[in-house]
C-alpha cells in the first residue's frame, strides 16, 4: 500500500480526528505583554497553608491540623493570606496566588525541583530545559550586551538548558556580594592591574598569533573574548553595584534576599530577560522552607523576609512603570500538609500547593483555584504544572503550543498545558 492508498482508505478516521484537532487549534492564542520574568525560588517546599492558602488554625502541640498562623484580609475581598504577609496583603490585587497546583513527586527534593523547573517528569531520553532557559531561548536578551538569563543561587542541572545547549544557559552568582562567576573581576584586582593585564594580553595577541587566528573557529573564539571583556567591563557589571541605589529603597527591600530582588530589578533594567532569585537564607532557620520538625520554629521569619522583599519589588517596579512588563513568579517544589510531624514541623505535600504570580500585565484576582478545608486537595479550578508553565509563557508572549526541537525531535514547549485564561481577560 503506498501513501496515497493509505490516505484514501483511512480518510474517514482522519476526517474525524481533523475535526477534533481544529477545535483545539481554533482557540485563539493567549498572549500577554510581559517582557521580563523574575522567578523567585523557595527551595524546600513553601508551606502553602502557612502562607498563601491559609485555613483554620491548627496546633502542633495538640497535633491539631491547620495553619500555624492567623489569617488576614487582603486588598481583594474574600482572599486571605497569613498574618506574616502583612506587606503583600494590601498589594494582592496585583497578585494571583495559584492555589491548586499539584503533582505527585514528593519523595525527593531534586526530582520535585526538576519538575517545577522543567514542568515535566524526568525523561529517560531527553534532558529538558528549565523555564529560564526556554524563555532565554525563545526571547533572547531584551537589550544588546545583556545576558538573557541570570541566576542568583546555586548552579544545578534543574536550572540548566538541557537539550537547548549552553546558549540558553545562565550566568550565576550565589549572593549579591559579587558579580556573576566568570564575568566579575576577582577581588583585589585594581583598575591599574586590570589595565596592565589587558595590555600584556594585547601585546601577546598581536604577536605570533596571527596565523592561528586565521582559522575561523579560533576567530570566533577571539570574538568571544571581546564580548566577554565587554560584559565584565564597567557597563554591565555596574548593575551589580547596589550601592548606587537610594539607601531608603535598599532598606525597604530588607536583607540579602531583598537585595537580590533589588538586583533583579536592576538586571531587568539592563535587559536581562529572566532572573531566578533563590530565597535560600538557611542560616535563618537552617532548613529554609523545608520545615520538618524544629525547622518550622522560625518559619515566620522566612515568610516576613519574603513578604518584605516581594512587596518592595512590586511597589518599586510599579513606581517605575515596570510592573506590567515584569512578571514575578514565586515558585517552589511542593507544599506541605496541614498536619504536624513529631517535632511540630511539616512533611511534604503535592496534591495541592501554591505558587504565586504578580505583575506582568495579568488580570490578577488575588487567588485562583480553591482547595478543601485544609488545603489538601483542589476542589475548584485545578491547575496542572504544565498549565502553570504555559501561563508563564503566555504572559511573556511565547507561543505555548509550539514545539522546541532536540535535533529532529519535536518537544512541545510545555507538556500540553493550557494557560489560566482568566488572567488574560
Amino acid at each position, binding site marked *: 500500500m503506498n501513501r496515497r492508498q493509505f490516505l484514501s482508505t483511512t480518510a474517514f478516521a482522519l476526517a474525524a480526528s481533523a475535526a477534533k484537532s481544529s477545535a483545539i487549534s481554533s482557540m485563539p492564542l493567549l498572549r500577554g505583554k510581559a517582557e521580563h520574568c523574575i522567578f523567585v525560588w523557595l527551595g524546600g517546599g513553601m508551606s502553602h497553608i502557612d502562607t498563601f492558602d491559609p485555613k483554620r488554625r491548627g496546633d502542633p502541640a495538640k497535633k491539631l491540623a491547620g495553619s500555624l498562623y492567623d489569617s488576614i484580609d487582603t486588598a481583594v475581598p474574600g482572599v486571605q493570606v497569613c498574618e506574616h504577609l502583612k506587606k503583600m496583603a494590601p498589594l494582592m490585587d496585583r497578585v494571583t496566588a495559584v492555589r491548586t497546583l499539584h503533582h505527585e513527586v514528593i519523595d525527593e527534593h531534586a526530582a520535585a525541583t526538576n519538575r517545577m523547573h522543567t514542568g515535566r517528569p524526568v525523561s529517560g*531520553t531527553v534532558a529538558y530545559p528549565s523555564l529560564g532557559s526556554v524563555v532565554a531561548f525563545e526571547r533572547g536578551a531584551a537589550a544588546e550586551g545583556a545576558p538573557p538569563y541570570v541566576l542568583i543561587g546555586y548552579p544545578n542541572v534543574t536550572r540548566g538548558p538541557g537539550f537547548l545547549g549552553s546558549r540558553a544557559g545562565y550566568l550565576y552568582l550565589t549572593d549579591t556580594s559579587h558579580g556573576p562567576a566568570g564575568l566579575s573581576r576577582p577581588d583585589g584586582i585594581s583598575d591599574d592591574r586590570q589595565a596592565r593585564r589587558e595590555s600584556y594580553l594585547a601585546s601577546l595577541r598581536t604577536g605570533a598569533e596571527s596565523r592561528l587566528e586565521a582559522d575561523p573557529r579560533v576567530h570566533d573564539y577571539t570574538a568571544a573574548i571581546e564580548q566577554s571583556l565587554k560584559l565584565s567591563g564597567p557597563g554591565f557589571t555596574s548593575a551589580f553595584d547596589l550601592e548606587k541605589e537610594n539607601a531608603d529603597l535598599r532598606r525597604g527591600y530588607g536583607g540579602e534576599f531583598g537585595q537580590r530582588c533589588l538586583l533583579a530589578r536592576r538586571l531587568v533594567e539592563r535587559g536581562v530577560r529572566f532572573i531566578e532569585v533563590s530565597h535560600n537564607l538557611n542560616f535563618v532557620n537552617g532548613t529554609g522552607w523545608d520545615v520538618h520538625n524544629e525547622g518550622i520554629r522560625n518559619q515566620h521569619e522566612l515568610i516576613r523576609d519574603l513578604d518584605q522583599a516581594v512587596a518592595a519589588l512590586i511597589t518599586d517596579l510599579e513606581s517605575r512603570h515596570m510592573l506590567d512588563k515584569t512578571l514575578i513568579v514565586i515558585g517552589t517544589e511542593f507544599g506541605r500538609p496541614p498536619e504536624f510531624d513529631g517535632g511540630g514541623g511539616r512533611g511534604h505535600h503535592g496534591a495541592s500547593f501554591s505558587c504565586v504570580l504578580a505583575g506582568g500585565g495579568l488580570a490578577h484576582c488575588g487567588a485562583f483555584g480553591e482547595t478543601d478545608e485544609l488545603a489538601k486537595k483542589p476542589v475548584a479550578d485545578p491547575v496542572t504544572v504544565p498549565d502553570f508553565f504555559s501561563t508563564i509563557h503566555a504572559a511573556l508572549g511565547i507561543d505555548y503550543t509550539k514545539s522546541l526541537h532536540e535535533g529532529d525531535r519535536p518537544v512541545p514547549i510545555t507538556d500540553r498545558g493550557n494557560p489560566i485564561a482568566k488572567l488574560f481577560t
Partner: protein
Amino acid sequence: MKVPRLAALFLAALLPAASADTARVLVTFHDALPAHDAWPATETDIPPPAIRWLATDFTFPRLAQRYDTFGIRDSWATPMMLRAAAEVRIAPGPTRFLIRARGLSRLSVNGEVIASTKALKGSSDGHNPVPPLPQPPIAGMRPVAYGMQEAFGTATVGEDGRCTVLFEAMIGGKKFRAADGEMCVAVQATGDATFTLLHPEGPATPLTDVGWTTAAARAEASLAALDDTNRHTAAATQDTFWEKRHDAARDWAKAHTPPAAPLNSIDAFLSDKIARAVAAAAGGMDAEGESFHKNVLPVLSDTCFRCHGEKSKGDLRLNTRPAALKAGTSGNAAIVPGEPASSELIARISSHDPDERMPPKGDALAPAQIAAIQSWIKVGAPWPAEPVPADEVAIPPLIGDAAFLRRAALDLIGVPPSEAEARAFLTDTTTDKRARFIDTLLADPRFADHWVSYWQDVLAENPSMLKPSLNNSGPFRWFLYDALRDAKPLDRMATELILLRGSKTEGGSAGFGVAADNDAPFAAKGQILGSAFLGLELQCARCHDAPFHESKQRDLYSLAAMLERKPVTVPKSSTVPAAFFEKKARESVIKVTLKPGEEIAPKWPFSKACGLADSAAIDSLMRDPHDTRERLAALITAPQNERFAQVIVNRVWKRLIGAGFVEPAHDWEGHAASHPELLAWLARDFVAHDYDLRHVVRLVMTSQIYQREATAQNRKAAPERRWFTAPDRRRLTAEEVVDSLYTAAGKKLEVEELTFDPDGRQAAGTMISLGAPTRAWQLASLSNERDRPSLSLPRAQAVSDVLNAFGWLGSRQNPLTDRETDPNVLQPGVLANSMMSTWITRASADSGLAALALDAKSPETLVNAVFMRFLTRPPTDSERADFSKALAPGFSERVLPADAVPDLTPLPRISKVSWSTHLMPEATTIKMEMERRARAGDPPDPRLAPDWRERYEDFVWAIINVPEFVWIP
C-alpha cells in the same frame, strides 16, 4: 576487660613464618560482620580476612579496595572489620596510647584492652548540632578529624621494651557505608610530648598536620600498590578466557585480510582516495554540469537526501543519477531526463496538496529552486563528477617539534609536557624521537586519566553524591579508569561493562546498570550501548519507531531484555500520547508499534546492522551461553561483528584528527564512510592486535596526517569530499583546560571531598563519596538541586565553573559523543576572572610559579620557562624582549630578605558540614566562610616582593588568556 592474647595469636596465624616481617604492621580486612556495635564473641566468629596488608605503621587513611573475581571494584559487605597487629618496641614503663576511629574500636596491648571507642550511631536527618571544634590533646597536634572519636589508654611496657599491639575497628554497618576516616593509633613517649603514630620500631612520625599528611601519603602509596596487585591478580584469572578469544579474533582477522593488500598504511589509503578523485574529474565539466553542482545538487542534498539518499523512504533514493531515474512506491519515475512534466520529482515539489507535497515538513522549495531543477531535467539531467580543486587536496606541511610535542602530550595524557620534558625533546636530534615520545606517553598512567572522561560522556556516567535521582547512574568512572589503567582490551572492557559487575554504588561496572527515576532503565542502557559501540542511535525507539532510522521500538526493548536477563515490559510513560496523532492532518512520520504493557523477550535485534546473527556459532565466545546478558556482550564484541571494531577506531580517529570517517560517530545509519577501505583496514588491524586501544592511537599518531598543520575542514565536508589531508583545528577539552592549568602552574588540584557525608553516617545507597579529585574528570555534578548553601562545595564549584564553560557536563543524563564546542563569553570569562583563574595565576607558596620565580636566574629565563610550561614553546624574540622588560624592574630585589618576610598565619580551623548537620543554621555560616576562603584563594608566597610578584602574576594571567592556550597546535 581481658581478651585473650589475640594479637600474638593473630600474628602467629597470619604472618607466614618464612616472611615474618616484624618491622611491619599486619593489617587484615574482614567482610560481613554480624553487627557494627558488638565484637564477635570468639576469634572463630570473625570471618577469614578478605585482604591482608603489610603497613609501615598504624596509620589507616582509607580501606583497601575490594575487588570482585574479575578485578572489578566491589563494595565491602558492611559492617566490616579492620585488625592491625604488630610487635612493637617501646621504652619500658607506663606508656600512653591514643586511638582514633569513627565507630567501635579497641586497642589491646599485651592482650589487655586499654582503650576503646563507641559504636557508630545513625543520624538520618540533618538537624544534628554542629560539633564543637575538637581541641588537640597536646598543643600543635592534629585534632581528631570530623565525625571521629579518640580515646586514650595506658599500658605498662615490660623491661624487654616489647609489646604486642592489636587494634581492631568496626567500619560501616548495615546502614552505614564503609568509610574509615583518619583512623590511627599513636603513642606518647613522655608525659607532655606530642603523640607519634605507632610504628613497630625506630623513629616515628609525629601526629601533627604535617606528620599526618606524610604518613597518610605513605600509607596511600602502599595501599595503591596493594590495590593494583589485588586487582591484577583477580583480573588474571580471566586471562585464559581472553587469550582464547583473542586467538580466535586474530585468526578471524587473518582470514579476512587480503594476503597482499596494495595499501597498508593510513597515509597510503588517504592519498589513494585523492588520486582517484582527481583522475575521475580529469575530463572537466561543461556549463550544464557546473550549474547542476551549483544550483541543483545542493538543493537535493539539503532537502531530499535525508530520506531519499541516506535512507530509501518510499523505496526511492535520489542521491545518484541511476537511482533517481527509477520509480519508488508511487510507480512513477522520479526523474525522466528531458521531460520535467513527466518527472514525479517535479510534480511533488510543486504540489500544493499537503498530503502530496515534498518535502513533507518545513517550507516548500522556492520557485527559483524548482525552476533550476526543471531546467536541469530538461537538458537531460546531467550528473558529472565534480572537479577537485587543487587547494582542497593540497597537503599542508608537517608541524614543527614544539607543536608536535604539545599536540601529542595533550592527546595522550591530557596535559602539556613539563619544562624538562619539553627541553629534552626539543634538543633531541634523533630521527625517531616522535615515535619514541608517543610510546613513552602511551605507557604513562595519565593516559587513563585522559581517556576516561571520553567514555564517561559516551556511556552517560552520571553519579550523584546523594540519593540517586534524575537519571543518575552509579560512579562506574572507577571501573573505566581501572580498565584503561590496566590497558584492558576494548572488547574486554565493553564485555565487563555489559556484565554489570561489582559495586553499583562504589565504582563497579554494575553502576552502569543504574538509571534512577527512569521508567525503563535497561532500555536506557541499551540505547547507550547502541550508540557507544555500534553507531546505532536508538533514542527514538524508546517511545516509537524512528522516523529517520530503521530501528524499531521492538529492537530496543529486545536489547533491553537481553541486558536485563528477562522479558521487559514497555512502560506506560514510554510511548506517544494518542492525542499527538489526532492533531496530525498528514500521516505521522513516527509510529508506535509496541503497546504499553507489552512484554518483549530477549532477542538480538541487530543481525542486519552488524552483519552477525545470533547462533550457537558464537557460544564459544562466552563462559555461559545461556546468559542473555553475556550473549549480548559477545554479540557486540565478536570479531565477526565488524561494526564494533569500526565504531571504536572511528571514535579514536575522530578524537585525534577532529572528524570521523563516519559522522556522526554515534549514529551511522545512512551515513557513508569517507574512507570505507581505510576504516575496514584499521578495524581489522585493531582486531588483529587484541582490541588494544593504545595500538590504534599509536598507529594514528605516527601517521603523516596526524602530524600535519591542523588546517583542514574535514568535519564540515561531505563524506565524498572529506580528504583528511590534515587534522581539523581542535580546542582543548574542558578537562584539558583545567588539568593543563594546574600542571603548568605546578599546583595540586585541591577541592573538597565530593561527598555530603564526610562522617560516614549514611548507607552507600543513599550517599557516596566520589573522593577528593586530583584530575578534572573526577569532578561531578555537585547535586545541589536543593539549593542549600550548606550543601555547597565552593572549591569544587569553582573548578566546575571552568569545566562547564568549556563544554563539560557534570550531569550526563544522556550519552554524548560531540560536546558543544561553540565559543561563548564564559570561556574567556572564566580564564580571566574565575576563582580558579585567581588560584592558578597566583604565586602562592604551594605553587610551582613561586618556586620558578624564586629560582629564576634572569627575567629572560623566567619568561622562557613560563612560555614553555604553559604554551610548550619558547617565546619569540619580541615576546621575550617585551616580558623580560616588564619583569626586569625590581627583579634583583624580588626575593625579600629573610627578616622582611611576613609570617603566614594559618587560618583558624573550621568545622566540616555533613548531611547530618546541614540543616542547622551554623552549617550555612560555615559554608559561607568556606566560600569566602575559596574566593580569597591561597595566600601569595610571602618571600616575593608584592609589587614585582603582581607584575609576574599579571604576565601569567596574560599567558593563560591568550587564545593560543586553548587551541591544540
